[in-house]
């Protein structure tokens, strides 16, 4: 059986793969991360990787729940 957390990681990694290569994502004193570095963080289940999964899943849930439409309209 596939673990739900592994499915979430796969979804997040797929989303990160389409991020523009010139972009860096900054988070406090943990530093800034390129697309490839973030993917490694997610794969390795680091604190940053776990937080990125939390952020992306919260975003996808907001989209699913229609929060995106509330913001746009």
């Amino acid at each position, binding site marked *: 059986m596939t673990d739900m957390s592994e499915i979430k990681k796969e979804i997040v990694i797929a*989303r990160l793969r389409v*991020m523009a290569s010139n972009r860096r994502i900054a988070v*406090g004193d943990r530093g800034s991360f*390129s697309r490839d570095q973030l993917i490694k963080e997610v794969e390795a289940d680091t604190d940053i990787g776990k937080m990125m999964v939390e952020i992306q899943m919260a975003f996808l849930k*907001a989209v699913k729940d229609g929060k995106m439409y509330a913001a746009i309209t």
Partner: protein
Amino acid sequence: MPKALLVTRPNHDEITNYLSAWCKKSVDFARSRGMTVIDLDGNKATRAQFESYNSSVAPSFIIFNGHGSSEAVTGHNNLPIVSTDSNVGQLKSRIIYSISCSSAAGLGRGSIAAGAISYIGYLKPFWFIYDKNSATRPLQDVEAKVFFEHSELFINLLIKGHTINDAYGRAKKNLEANYAKALSSDGGESDAAALLLWDLTHFDAQGDLNASI
């Protein structure tokens, strides 16, 4: 007597350089409005300098830029400037805005308990995107702009005399608008949207929100 603003703006790494550059615009704006501004930039952003000026000038408004945790905000070289377990009493009778990770969670609540008027900040880490090709020119970085506009708006509205409640509400609206723009963009902006939603969700104001500086 003119109102006073005390700002810490360390810039010892790429992230603090962005925070510092964006807040400098508000420092200049405060000066143009006749405020007394103590600008502890670069290596002047230390606990000793902060405490010295905080005691002697008694600013009505304090802005911390820098790294942080739930219990502290830091300055030059990530050394603590104020923390819940040491000098939170420094924030008594002040309005504080902290552009740092997570400090609204512990330090914010601790400051209100210690007599601060209001504490505005972020309950979780503050995330932003920047363009590595623009890292030496933070104000020209359009990737980063959407993450800092609300902050500049919030500060400038307070400087103009708006209540915290009004400034905070309008800053949140600005973040929402940037979130909506990122969502509706034709480009690959959903990574920006996800982080904007996160920052919006964790942007927090505590204490007396009817106060003004």
